[in-house]
């Protein structure tokens, strides 16, 4: 028995009791375990391990890293969507004497999981995926500034994702909401490991994002091809530059807020405790000083995608390029001085609230400038109403409705009424889904043929689009009304006499319609892959304007055999209309070697965080491995390889003729 106790001590707080017992959680946990097992089995049966390791897990190529980000994001999107269906079912039926399908604590866990996963592992994943794929190509670069760091960022993101999903199998999820406000998230009120999982998962993924932010900031500033001055960059790169600037200055605040909360829980400090001289509103300030810029971090690159899509599918150059750039930087600046509008009810006094209220209204101005610029780009254009442009039109409508609701809530007295209501929930879903998700859907449809050589099926894409749009409006317009009627967020049960049920049922139907839309998106992917030989799309399927479309498809691993010559905006558009003969000789190309060290850093940090969550202190020492790996890496002078000029010429010919 004493041996058993010793063993128990070795494993910290971990014991068999921590594995799930109720059927619904067991089903979810089963899925989380089953999916990797199925993937491992498929890889083993098809003997693909070596291929996976050599081509993907050790890669330093931003194009592959981008695709891995997007795959993780899609998988997490499915998890976030299943959370939605549970939430909507619960709220549609848990009325009066019925308690619905979920217990109160389980419901809160699912709501927290939905928000956390959708923001950190879906939206961020899609964003960094698209940035990795597109930015180096658009600026005429062969790589990012720090390829090793880039791969490490991905693996930290991946480790954060694994950790948050482990909580479904071992332990529980945080029930403290997606931002874990204290004092609820303090040890006293959330004694289980859920909040710890939440903290460390976000900490790891957050550091990954911070490093990626630094990386792309420097990449855009330093690695543009000769001739491409900042004001000649494609608008997507401008928006990424703004977004990455925000990442670099906002994510350290998240790191601090999370670390201090972890100190409160693990070391007994008094930062945010209700006693001991702590100040819980300080957490709320810190988390939103990161959280509000985060909203713009996500949406700016989506704006960038729309700038590319609207211009390409209207066959016109982007209207108001300079004002677009200024609008981005106005948003970047203003996004740091609006955070308090998330808690006008704190009691900061009317002067402070007035300042933040006015700033919040002002930030709608540059956003409006962008919207009008897109509309003017479309005006008198030859509109090609393909799905990417449809996503834009849906965005323009939804984002404007949501934005108006936002300006409404920027008025502090109105916010006092709407704070923490479903009106707010409807507002931010219109911004994040309507802005960010629609934007990345448009981007994926637009750039897909560049990387895979065939277009996504247009008809199924349309079905998916209409399901999404109709389902989305069905799901969220009722929430605006419910919010006005006083329905609060995270409501797991309500009285029948309130008469809310019909609206919740409509919202539930909306969620199902969205799920059908997602089903169509998967069908679209499957059909497009099956029919890929009939649908080959060439190098420039949309007759687009920026440099990435000048490359052969699929894009060679070195991107540009000869770096493009840039003199104007929309360089490729101009090149297509002039007859250019490239007489330059080929030059050797230097590229980073593949290395497993990034993955090893990710895995050791994952083990470290898992150990901290469960207080298995000896296991936390594995985290030191990451430091050792960094030192070993710094000693390695042989991190790149060179392709000779002759080889480049041969490869270029093969790629141009479509032999690869």
């Amino acid at each position: 028995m004493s041996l058993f106790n010793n063993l128990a001590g070795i494993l910290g707080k971990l014991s068999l009791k921590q594995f799930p017992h109720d059927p619904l959680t067991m089903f979810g946990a089963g899925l989380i375990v089953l999916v990797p097992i199925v993937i491992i089995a498929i890889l083993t049966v098809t003997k693909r391990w070596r291929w996976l390791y050599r081509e993907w897990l050790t890669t330093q190529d931003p194009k592959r890293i981008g695709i891995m980000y997007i795959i993780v994001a899609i998988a997490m999107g499915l998890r976030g969507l299943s959370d939605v269906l549970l939430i909507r079912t619960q709220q549609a039926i848990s009325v009066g004497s019925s308690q619905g399908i979920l217990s109160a604590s389980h419901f809160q866990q699912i709501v927290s999981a939905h928000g956390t996963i959708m923001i950190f592992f879906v939206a961020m994943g899609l964003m960094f995926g698209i940035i990795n794929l597109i930015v180096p190509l658009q600026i005429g670069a062969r790589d990012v500034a720090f390829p090793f760091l880039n791969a490490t960022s991905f693996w930290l993101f991946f480790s954060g994702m694994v950790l948050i999903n482990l909580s479904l199998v071992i332990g529980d999820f945080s029930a403290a909401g997606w931002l874990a406000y204290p004092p609820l998230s303090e040890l006293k009120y959330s004694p289980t490991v859920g909040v710890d999982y939440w903290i460390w998962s976000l900490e790891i993924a957050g550091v990954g994002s911070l490093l990626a932010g630094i990386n792309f900031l420097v990449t855009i500033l330093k690695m543009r091809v000769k001739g491409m001055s900042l004001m000649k960059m494609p608008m997507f790169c401008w928006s990424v530059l703004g977004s990455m600037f925000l990442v670099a200055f906002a994510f350290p605040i998240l790191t601090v807020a999370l670390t201090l909360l972890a100190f409160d829980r693990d070391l007994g400090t008094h930062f945010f405790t209700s006693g001991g001289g702590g100040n819980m509103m300080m957490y709320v300030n810190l988390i939103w000083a990161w959280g509000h810029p985060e909203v713009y971090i996500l949406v700016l690159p989506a704006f960038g995608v729309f700038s590319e899509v609207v211009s390409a599918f209207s066959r016109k150059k982007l209207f108001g390029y300079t004002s677009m750039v200024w609008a981005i930087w106005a948003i970047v600046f203003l996004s740091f001085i609006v955070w308090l509008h998330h808690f006008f009810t704190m009691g900061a006094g009317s002067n402070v609230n007035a300042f933040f209220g006015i700033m919040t209204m002002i930030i709608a101005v540059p956003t409006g400038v962008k919207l009008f610029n897109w509309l003017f780009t479309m005006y008198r254009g030859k509109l090609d109403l393909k799905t990417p442009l449809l996503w834009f039109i849906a965005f323009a409508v939804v984002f404007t409705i949501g934005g108006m609701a936002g300006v409404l809530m920027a008025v502090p007295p109105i916010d006092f009424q709407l704070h923490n209501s479903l009106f707010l929930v409807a507002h931010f879903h219109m911004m994040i889904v309507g802005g960010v998700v629609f934007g990345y859907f448009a981007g994926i449809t637009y750039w897909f043929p560049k990387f895979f050589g065939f277009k996504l099926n247009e008809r199924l894409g349309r079905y998916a689009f209409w399901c999404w749009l109709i389902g989305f409006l069905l799901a969220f317009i009722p929430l605006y009304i419910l919010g006005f009627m006083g329905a609060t967020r995270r409501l797991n049960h309500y009285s029948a006499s309130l008469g809310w049920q019909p609206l919740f049922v409509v919202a539930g139907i909306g969620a199902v319609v969205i799920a059908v839309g997602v089903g169509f998106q998967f069908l679209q992917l499957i059909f497009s892959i099956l029919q890929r030989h009939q649908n080959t799309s060439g190098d420039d399927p949309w007759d687009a304007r920026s440099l990435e479309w000048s490359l052969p498809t699929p894009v060679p691993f070195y991107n540009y055999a000869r770096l493009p010559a840039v003199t104007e905006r929309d360089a490729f558009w101009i090149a297509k209309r002039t007859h250019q003969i490239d007489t330059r000789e080929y030059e050797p190309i230097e590229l980073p070697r593949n290395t497993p060290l990034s993955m090893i850093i990710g895995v050791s940090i994952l083990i470290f965080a898992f150990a901290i969550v469960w207080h298995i202190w000896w296991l936390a020492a594995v985290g030191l491995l990451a430091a050792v790996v960094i030192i070993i890496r710094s000693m390695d002078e042989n991190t790149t390889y060179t392709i000779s000029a002759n080889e480049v010429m041969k490869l270029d010919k093969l790629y141009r003729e479509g032999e690869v």
Partner: protein
Amino acid sequence: MAAEIEIHNTNRLIESYDRDATTILGFWVYLMTDCVLFASLFAVFAVLRNNTFGGPSGATLFSLPYVLAETFSLLTSSFTCGLAVLSAQRGNKKHTIFWFGVTFLLGLIFLIMEISEFHKFVKMGDSWQRSGFLSSYFTLVGTHGLHITIGLIWIAVMCVYVYKRGIGQTTLKRIRMLSLFWHFLDVVWIFIFTVVYLFGALHA
């Protein structure tokens, strides 16, 4: 519109950007993110500095002469770090290692003094668990201490590197970044010395 344009091989395009300058810029941006991290911790300290919750305040805890000795140790290490960079630029391997060695020792003295101060407070029962003020004090000063620890490891690794490989372009670039890091920590410490210790001793 079919104007013929020839693109000539006028400039070597293989290195269209300066790799060393790129790395240094990246490191600068990293330092700025670290600056935001410290700024957040300073803000937290500013909010909590009077929340002593019946425990000791800065005025009763801190001994200014002791902290001044710490400060001089760190400031001198910044000076010797500069000497190490100058030696490295001249390609003098021996002097570089020597001055980095001195920097390491001074940094170590600083760290040991800080840890023994922490130890003293904890032994008196004034640990980070005592009050919001002490939580923020230990975290702000401790985060700086953690950075110093990482800096010391970096200096040690750099000495091995210089000893084994000599001073090439890559080494020089890394020495520059190390010195940026070390000076940055010095600047942060000046703020800690002022905001935490001097202001702390002022307000009884």
